[in-house]
């Protein structure tokens, strides 16, 4: 199997599988123990300057925003982030100066809502560096390889494009068909963060609806932080074990954070807060506006509950619940297309 071509992007988050196995053996507890802690404790304990981080969910869906705000609050620096259709999270982490390196499948855009002023400004000014390109499926499969404890996984995308040239993938000849095939290197993030509807105190987390790439990401990451709408009794999990997306032995911290995905969407529970997202997209057009945003919503509040009050409290959250459950009309927002 000869190597036909090698992408020139930086290889992010790869480990020799033997080295990763050793890390898992020494650092991941198989014990059913209470892992509940505050968001502040979780970030302090498990997120370090220079880490390679990734969030569960997709775009503006099921994003663990309380952890994102806490990373900003604690002033973490030089983070590399997976741009795996990372949208709101990556935009504000770049805007806050926490993330300065990104491997991009999709970033710097807010889908229908338009491009990200903060993220783009940072990349175009050189403050944030794109270290490699990839696609959504490509990133997903990099995590799958990590979840499987493999050095790489084959795929039939990227071939023939500059996305491949700036990726960390390689092209080889498939020994069976004789055709060129792409090999994607595994990605093992240092920290993966998720927001879920329910989780027990041990970290058995369940997700309703689409999993996006959370199943694979949680299994590939070294540290897994879970925020949950509610901490449920172990009994709830054990009565429906096939709904568990992330079992406890993968999880390092469990934090109860109702509405923890705000302003992003929590399927079945609450809708995007379009008003708040629009506010961010508007104020982040300038450095001053960006700074003022963080002063108000991150540094100006002591925790996520105070933030929720600030963005509209019970009235706003009840409204978002009604919209999500199709009991109130969807708000209008900006045009454009992906």
């Amino acid at each position, binding site marked *: 199997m000869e190597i036909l071509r090698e992408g020139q992007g930086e290889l992010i988050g790869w480990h020799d599988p033997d080295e990763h196995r050793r890390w898992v053996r020494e650092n991941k507890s198989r014990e059913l123990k209470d892992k509940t802690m505050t968001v502040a404790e979780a970030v302090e304990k498990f997120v370090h300057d220079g880490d390679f981080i990734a969030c569960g969910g997709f775009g503006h869906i099921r994003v663990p925003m309380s952890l994102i705000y806490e990373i900003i609050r604690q002033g973490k620096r030089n983070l590399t982030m997976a741009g795996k259709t990372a949208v709101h999270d990556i935009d504000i982490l770049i805007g806050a100066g926490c993330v300065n390196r990104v491997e991009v*499948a999709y970033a710097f855009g807010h889908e229908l809502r338009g491009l990200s002023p903060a993220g783009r400004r940072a990349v175009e000014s050189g403050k944030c560096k794109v270290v490699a390109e990839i696609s959504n499926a490509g990133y997903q499969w990099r995590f799958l390889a990590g979840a499987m404890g493999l050095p790489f996984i084959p795929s039939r995308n990227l071939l023939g494009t500059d996305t491949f040239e700036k990726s960390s993938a390689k092209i080889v000849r498939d020994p069976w068909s004789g055709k060129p095939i792409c090999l994607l290197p595994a990605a093992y993030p240092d920290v993966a963060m998720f927001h879920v509807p329910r989780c027990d105190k041990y970290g058995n987390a369940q997700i309703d609806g689409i999993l996006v790439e959370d199943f694979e990401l949680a299994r590939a990451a070294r540290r897994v932080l879970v925020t949950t709408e509610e901490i449920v009794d172990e009994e709830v999990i054990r009565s429906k074990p096939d709904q568990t997306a992330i079992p406890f032995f993968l999880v390092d911290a469990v934090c109860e954070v109702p509405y923890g995905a705000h302003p992003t969407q929590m399927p079945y529970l609450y809708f995007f807060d379009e008003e708040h997202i629009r506010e961010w997209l508007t104020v982040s057009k300038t450095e001053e506006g960006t700074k003022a945003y963080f002063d108000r919503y991150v540094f100006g509040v002591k925790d996520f509950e105070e933030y929720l009050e600030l963005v509209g409290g019970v009235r706003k959250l009840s409204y978002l619940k009604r919209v999500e459950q199709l009991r109130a009309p969807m708000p209008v927002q900006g045009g454009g297309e992906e």
Partner: protein
Amino acid sequence: MAEIASYTPTELLACVAAHVLEDGKSIFVGTGLPMIASMLAQRTHAPNLLIIFEAGGIGPQVPVLPISVGDSRTFHRAVGASSMHDVMSALQNGYVDYGFLGAAAIDPYGNINTTIIGDWERPKVRLPGSGGANDIGSLCWRTIIMMRQDKRRFANKLPFITTPGYLTGPGAREAAGLPEGTGPYRVITQLGVYGFDETTKRLKLISRHPGVTIEEIQANSEFEIIIPAEVPESTPPTPEEQRILREIDPSGMVIKVR
């Protein structure tokens, strides 16, 4: 020409795109116009069009226009709510007939750039990158590209090929290892509908929108577009289609209210 005032350019695009889709086929859609075109097709000639979203929604009954391809609307009353790995694997395994893509710029072979303007290391404008576009453009059977056309966007050479079209021409996709028999199928712009010449794999005009001249079409492209002897006009929206479009997007999020 009195007809022109009776529909907006976006309505026209949505309808033209819907007309391309066949019943009983599967399609990977993004948000915005592609989503609207697919929903329109479902409510008119293609009730059995299977819509799949890259984040894992399979065959939903979409109640209102989703804002994101991962939005809970994309798996509302779906037959499956799965994962990106699952649907991307289905795509790679040949189960997806059509894929809709947007583009910042395109070249004569249907290659697409959505990554940068300028230099990659320090771009003049940083765009979002591939997202699922490279996957769709690589792996679905037929790619449909919807974009704005002008001399800068229909470019001889792209600064960055994010998503593969026919690459450098006939046979190039297969030589690169991309699945056989795939590639761009249609390009739909505000001026017309394009396909690709069988022999050269270069962009070729199929229809021009009502009121658009061949000269306008060529003037809005840096490269030469293949123009057949006979070029029909695109079929304009019917009042029924316009009514359905208002149903699909009542707030005018994409189909701007006139």
